């Protein structure tokens, strides 16, 4: 069960272009599963920003000196993320979580490739641990536009069989995109599942590669969210159900991870005309 926690910032350090913020979080770590996220309030009741911001949970610790804590990775680029990046030790921070469906884990100890784009890597490290604990081989691919925007290279190296790094500008690893490296990694590792988190375009490309190789992908999407808890219907995208019918599902409670072959990638931001309940005339 998610909780609302009035926490405090334990630490907030700059790492490349990002900030890794540690906050007290009471019982959240106990409830946590890889793939969950938290919704963070931006300021107190004086703030003009009334919507929470969603952040993948990067790490949890339920036995620290501060009791339970969670770590999130912040990419500052707007009013909310800027605010959080500037928080200091002991500042108040209000979190709701853990939220969202966790990643589905394979029943058998099959090889898995984890693909993270930029801060999208954040939820993959606890996932890697869980997979490893099940005996899965884990190979990592981290990509970003440039070196500063890569996240978690050292850690990925530590917990994976292989780590492949790509940057668009070649400042670190191979020049290119994660999907340029993906087929090779799939081949070498004999992957059965691909997990991916990052920009929507990357997820689409990863899902396509997985489909082409006939293997399962789980993509953790990032849709604009107002509530994060499933009550507002802002965070929807077209997902094909087991019955073959496309529905507008909430990424906050039905996701954020969806099977890559179930997302209508080319129709994200639209209502496909065959969607359950779509307007008859096709207007929006």
């Amino acid at each position: 069960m998610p909780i609302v926690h009035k926490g405090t910032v334990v630490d907030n350090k700059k790492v490349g272009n990002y900030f890794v913020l540690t906050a007290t979080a009471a019982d959240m770590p106990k409830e946590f599963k890889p793939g969950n996220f938290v919704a963070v309030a931006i300021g107190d009741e004086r703030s003009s920003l009334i919507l929470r911001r969603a952040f993948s949970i990067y790490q949890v610790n339920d036995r620290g000196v501060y009791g339970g804590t969670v770590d999130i990775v912040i990419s500052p680029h707007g009013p909310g993320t800027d605010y959080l990046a500037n928080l200091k030790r002991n500042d108040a921070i209000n979190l709701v979580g853990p939220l969202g469906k966790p990643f589905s884990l394979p029943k058998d100890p099959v090889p898995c490739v984890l693909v993270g784009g930029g801060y999208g890597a954040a939820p993959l490290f606890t996932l890697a641990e869980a997979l490893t604990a099940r005996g899965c081989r884990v190979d990592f691919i981290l990509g970003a536009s440039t070196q500063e925007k890569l996240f978690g290279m050292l850690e990925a190296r530590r917990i994976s069989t292989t780590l492949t790094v790509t940057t668009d500008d070649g400042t670190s690893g191979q020049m290119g995109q994660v999907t340029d490296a993906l087929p090779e990694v799939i081949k070498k590792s004999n992957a059965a599942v691909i997990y991916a988190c990052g920009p929507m375009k990357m997820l689409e490309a990863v899902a396509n590669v997985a489909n082409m190789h006939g293997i399962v992908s789980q993509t953790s999407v990032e849709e604009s969210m107002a509530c994060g808890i499933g009550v507002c219907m802002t965070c929807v995208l077209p997902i094909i159900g087991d019955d073959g019918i496309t529905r507008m599902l909430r990424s906050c409670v039905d996701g954020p991870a969806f099977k890559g072959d179930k997302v209508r990638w080319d129709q994200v931001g639209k209502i496909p005309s065959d969607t359950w309940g779509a307007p008859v005339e096709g207007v929006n």
Partner: protein
Amino acid sequence: MKRVPKRTSVDMSIELAKLRLESPVLTASGCAAAGKELDQFIDISTIGAVVTKSVMLEPRSGRATPRMAETPSGMLNGIGLQGPGIDDFIEKDLAWLNQKGAKTIVSIAGNNVEEFGKVADKLRDIPGVIGIEVNISCPNVENRGQVFACDPYAAADVINNVRRNVSASMPLFAKLSPDVTDITEIAKSVVKAGADGLSVINTLLGMVIDTDTLLPRLSGKTGGLSGPAIRPVAVRCVYQIRKALPNIPIIGMGGIRSGRDAVEFFAAGANAVSVGTTVFNDPEACVRVHDEVAQILQDKGLRSLAEIINAAHEELI
């Protein structure tokens, strides 16, 4: 631990149309889905009532994304009434609410006058529905037509039709839009047509433009403005309607964030309040607001909520 209202010595129960509710704080339609998700945070059976997301006759996909934009002390939404349709709603959502012992006010909407009636008819004799809120004011309907709530005749037609399709004892609340020249005119018209009470207010029509693309941020271009930003408009609407209709039950809403905010609505004339957008910020808000109101009353040395209702109308008390 799900939050429940604190027990106090203050009588927080209310009379609302033909209803008696233990708490004056309800959810707002579209801001609590059908209660299930919120029940992780609060015990949904302990709040005044769950007002469900407006449901229509058929399943509905809603609008394309982006469906929302944050605004100063508020937000703009253009969900487009995504929902499962009334049959599925009754079968799943209402069944869940009943099993939980929640008090449910079902919000209904329609593309035309007839549809409202059909949806209402489906709710006839369904157990657990304590009231119906008729959303005649959603500005987001994809149908280009004028909003029902902006025309006294269209608004009355809808209420009339719904009234004919429900039992006489079923409390009907008409939900009004603030986007009109004279909200008391619409209020009078729907009351005459058979509404037992009024829900005041729905969102204000607004627009946010993305300064990167220079295009409207929402896929539907305009959307509904909600949240604390609109509170002064909502309080004014409640006040005007209470003045024009001294006895009509009113569910007040629009930007309620705290117990103090709710007290403004009660003083202006609301008999109950709905908490909408604030739930996105604080999933426990409905219970917290209840507790804060009780505390304020206690601090004032009052014994019941009833004592402050209409207090801002010196002529009424």
